[in-house]
């Protein structure tokens, strides 16, 4: 077993670290308060090559293997405190780019991937509905074929990047009676007639990542924008969800590493009772726990990505990584606040925001309860 990076991987990861620390280390407090998306940072990430990391060069990407990709996103999360931006990037990569790359026709890939890779196009995904969340395949937005177009009707909720997306991957049913076998997906462009996007939804965390409701009223989508085959929707969704689960929290591992380092620094500098608070076992224990969580989270992230690179199935590993990393992230944030005492509760200290940002990770891409169900079913239960 070899845990070393190759020289080329190290060079790439160093470049990501340098880029992120110089270009993305901006003040997030005001943007979080006002729920502002940083378009400039998005554009820089696109030009730098982040969005296209796992996409082959022929479609405008870098053709990186999954392990290098998640390690790069981890570096991004370490240097960039804007978890909302990172969430938008992850949604864009795993729920828009990967479905197009995995299921798109050559024409669709040529048309959309270069723009999605360099960030000039923003992608989003519309799956959840008011009445279908964890029970995803019970969705009720419909598509009916009419000549050379499909007519979409229904509504979607929690659409990440919805207010800013140029392209949405939309899951619909063509035959509700067939359940999961009746699903299919479309690539819907932002100006499609009959497509309405709500104002952005206010959220507890990742506030800098805009989210919306999306409504389809006799929305006509040309047949060449059908993604994959009719009825293949649930298969495509499961496949892209597995990518998403295994990768979406790579930047969270970087965030945890940063929280660990800033907490160590704080525990060394803050003095109470005549000594650094890090000398108190109850504080040191919290930091040791943070270290254990970062390390175990990183190993699960890397192992899942490595397996995928070996073209092994990762359904269970992705669910385990998602479950474990989100759990660790929230606990690390809680500890980071507790170590700082009252200061940790203050906005200026920037750890309360991390906690608000982290909590969503136990909900999106399948709740922690759903991840446990997946793991249990793979264990034959």
């Amino acid at each position: 077993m070899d845990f070393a990076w190759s020289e080329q991987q190290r060079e790439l990861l160093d470049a990501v670290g340098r880029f992120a620390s110089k270009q993305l280390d901006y003040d997030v407090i005001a943007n979080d308060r006002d729920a502002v998306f940083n378009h400039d940072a998005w554009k820089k990430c696109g030009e730098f090559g982040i969005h296209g990391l796992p996409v082959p060069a022929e479609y405008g990407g870098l053709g990186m293997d999954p392990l290098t990709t998640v390690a790069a996103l981890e570096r991004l999360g370490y240097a960039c405190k804007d978890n909302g931006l990172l969430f938008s990037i992850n949604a864009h990569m795993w729920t828009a780019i990967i479905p197009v790359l995995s299921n798109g026709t050559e024409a669709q890939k040529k048309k959309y991937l270069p723009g999605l890779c360099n960030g000039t196009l923003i992608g989003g995904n519309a799956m959840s509905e008011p009445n279908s969340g964890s029970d995803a395949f019970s969705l009720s937005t419909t598509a009916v074929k009419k000549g050379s177009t499909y007519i979409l009707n229904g509504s979607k909720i929690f659409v990440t990047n919805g207010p800013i997306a140029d392209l949405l991957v939309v899951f619909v049913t063509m035959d509700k009676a067939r359940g999961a076998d009746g699903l299919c997906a479309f690539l819907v462009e932002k100006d499609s007639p009959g497509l309405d996007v709500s104002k952005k939804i206010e959220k507890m965390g990742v506030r800098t990542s805009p989210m919306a409701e999306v409504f389809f009223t006799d929305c006509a989508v040309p047949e060449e924008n059908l993604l994959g085959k009719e009825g293949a929707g649930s298969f495509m969704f499961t496949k892209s969800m597995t990518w998403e689960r295994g990768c979406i929290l790579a930047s969270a591992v970087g965030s945890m590493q940063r929280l660990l380092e800033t907490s160590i620094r704080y525990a060394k500098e803050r003095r109470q009772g005549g000594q650094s608070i890090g000398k108190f076992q109850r504080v040191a224990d919290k930091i040791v726990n943070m270290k254990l969580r970062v390390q175990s989270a990183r190993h699960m992230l890397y192992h899942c990505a490595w397996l995928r690179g070996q073209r092994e199935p990762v359904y269970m590993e992705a669910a385990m990584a998602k479950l474990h990393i989100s759990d660790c992230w929230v606990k690390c944030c809680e500890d980071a606040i507790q170590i700082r005492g009252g200061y940790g509760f203050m906005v200026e200290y920037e750890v309360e925001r991390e906690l608000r940002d982290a909590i969503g990770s136990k909900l999106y891409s399948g709740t922690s309860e759903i991840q446990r169900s997946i793991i249990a079913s793979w264990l034959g239960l």
Partner: protein
Amino acid sequence: MTQGQSVEKILVPFKSVPDPYAGAAASTSKSVINPFDEIAIEEALQIRERGEATEIVGVTIGAPAVDEQIRAALAMGIDRAVRIDDARALDPYAVARILRALVEKESPQVVIMGKQAVDDDSNQVGQMLAGLLGWPQATFVSKIEFLENKTRARCTRETDGGLEIVAINLPAIITTDLRLNEPRYVSLPGLMKARRKPIETLTCEQLGVTVRPMTTTLSTSSPTRRAAGTRVGSVEELMAKLKQEAKVL
């Protein structure tokens, strides 16, 4: 040169230096391109992007370890690079003589380089190179414009008294000041492309240069540690200390 022709070749010598932004606490000393040279590279790239130059060749002197900084320069966008394989600590005159040999081999119309390296602050190589070649020079430049079909350049120099604008005939040496531009960051596509760009390795022997040091470093030492400061309780106390202890008032 005829109307509309661009400068055919710009040579950008650059030096690998310890990362000046790494901070004193950094446990490992990482090397980077000397920041002033990075500005020179950026300027050459902008000149090429304006269609005023065709090719940018980078050159550095060092052991194979400096290939990392060469790849960074290639990733920024220079076309090709030459490494003079010499691991010795060379003084400015030796560097200038090696560069002269390379200039004679490559025949660039312009050499753009940092005004000084941030590790030794010598600020001599550009001037010595101009002297050795008998070329005009413009140093501490904060703006470059080409004139008269690229036969001359107008350079704005930053001097202690303000700005000085000079016109120089090409070929010439231009050394860059801090305010010339903001160097671009290395992008990942740039990094991937850089892996396919050629790095030529030459030795001093191949260039027909024999260099021997004219200066010897006798010793180096860290600055003496400053004593810790004290906190004063009031303005009155501060004034008293400034008068009686520091004796500056």
